[in-house]
């Protein structure tokens, strides 16, 4: 198996008193897609923040463990240095620069990148080809884009920098099925071009289909890790994260009903 380009070892991260990660170890093999699954609050975003060195923006910090990218040790580096090393993140919840135009948002994506005008032009062309809407809206304020459009912008912005390692936090969030599929293709494509990817995705089916290796976070610790296909096969993961325990909608509905049965019913409010 290929050498890991990103090695996370025994990582611990706290938000003040709140412990978000405890002794998490994850590998991203060179040129591979690695998926990170996990429920709400499992610590997925925290993991990415720790790698990109942005914990302090959330009043948090990495309190133990190490992160190495290739030869370099990332722990303790500034976000800018980490980007310069080739590690770029698409943060959770889009985070486009709302008051800047779409075009300037894309330019912002170039700030940390090496390479001259030519490279920039090429990246821009590629992003526009992936997401034509970004070309049409070049001069619209990013904040006015629709949710999905903003998601595309965030993705495109990250791609501008031509990263070595791409960290994606729920890239398909709020995307229409077709667009989700397009994102999936994109990930495949850039991965094929040699970019390693660490993919955090609620849409586990999609994630496991893309990834070669995967791990499942649960309340700040790695519950399962290994080959994506194997995980996809394991009942545990299928039930918890693929929601495909019972294939047919009927049973699904039953499950729903069953749930409702034991769920307290909300009575009508009579003032």
């Amino acid at each position: 198996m290929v050498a890991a380009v990103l090695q996370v070892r025994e990582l611990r991260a706290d938000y003040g008193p709140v412990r978000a990660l405890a002794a998490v170890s994850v590998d991203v093999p060179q040129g591979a897609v690695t998926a990170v699954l996990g429920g709400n609050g499992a610590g997925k975003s925290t993991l990415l923040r720790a790698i990109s060195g942005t914990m302090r923006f959330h009043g948090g910090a990495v309190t133990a463990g190490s992160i190495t990218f290739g030869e370099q040790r990332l722990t303790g580096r500034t976000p800018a240095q980490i980007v310069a090393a080739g590690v770029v993140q698409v943060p959770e919840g889009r985070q486009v620069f709302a008051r800047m135009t779409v075009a300037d948002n894309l330019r912002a994506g170039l700030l940390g990148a090496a390479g001259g005008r030519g490279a920039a032009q090429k990246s821009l062309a590629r992003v526009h080809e992936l997401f034509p809407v970004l070309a049409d809206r070049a001069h619209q304020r990013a904040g006015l884009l629709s949710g999905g459009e903003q998601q595309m912008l965030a993705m495109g912005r990250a791609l501008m920098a031509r990263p070595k390692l791409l960290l994606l936090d729920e890239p398909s969030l709020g995307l229409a099925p077709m667009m989700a599929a397009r994102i999936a293709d994109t990930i495949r494509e850039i991965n094929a071009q040699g970019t390693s990817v660490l993919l955090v995705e609620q849409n586990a089916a999609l994630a496991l289909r893309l990834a070669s290796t995967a791990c499942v976070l649960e309340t700040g610790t790695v519950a399962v890790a290994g080959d994506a296909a194997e995980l996809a096969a394991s009942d545990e993961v299928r039930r918890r994260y693929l929601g495909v325990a019972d294939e047919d909608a009927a049973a699904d509905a039953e499950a729903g009903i069953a749930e409702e049965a034991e769920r307290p019913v909300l009575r009508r409010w009579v003032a």
Partner: protein
Amino acid sequence: MTTTEQRTAPAPQPLEVRDLTVRFAGLTALDKVSFTVAPGSIHAVIGPNGAGKSTCFNVLSGVYRASEGSVRLGEQELTRCSSNAIADLGVARTFQNIALSAHVTVADTLLLGRHRLTTSGFVATGLRLPSARREEALHRDRMREIAAFLGLEPYLAHPAGVLPYGLQKLVELGRALCMEPELLLLDEPIAGMTPSERQHTAGVISSVRDSLGISVLLVEHDMGVVMRLADTVTVLDFGRKIAEGTPAQVQNDPDVVRAYLGENGETGHIS
């Protein structure tokens, strides 16, 4: 008991959207869109990113002004109402990009939903008049009921802003429910949730409809959930309505497949 509730419930009024058109500088976000939400039904609006779904919600809730067309809730014309006037009519919504405060606790966030149902103003609360205290107590109880119903009770004291994404979505739903709405507008209520959470939330939505007998207008990209919940589906594309009907009908509509679902149907969501 659900049924008895429904019998006693005053039948909610239909929502009629007629030739709704919204233009922004240089683009038409909605173009003569018409549809009707039958009382007590769950009506889904789907469509590619940027199709105009949220814009439609923004008009319904008085955030945007319609350029043309009309929106009536029963006899009441909404297009000329301010957003708080619309809220007073019993229209509640959640937001696609979460609109919660980082500092305010979940409890207070939910209580904000009770604003339209309560009356005590500066003087009453400032002087702590008995009327104000009574009102506060009464509505806190109801708020707890709703929190319990959604499973938010453990988090009531937490600041809403730092909860994990999925929980924040639930808090938004709770805030909307606290308005005791007659019409509930949900903009991607289950985006960013794990399959199990999706099922849970989906269950909540249908149970709310059943037990309260209110109408729900739902925007969601997760076809699985749309299929399961919706009675009727309206499909938008580039601001135009391209299809309408039962979930089954629209799912097999070639236009819809081409514009939205995509041939290879790689939705990856529950289905």
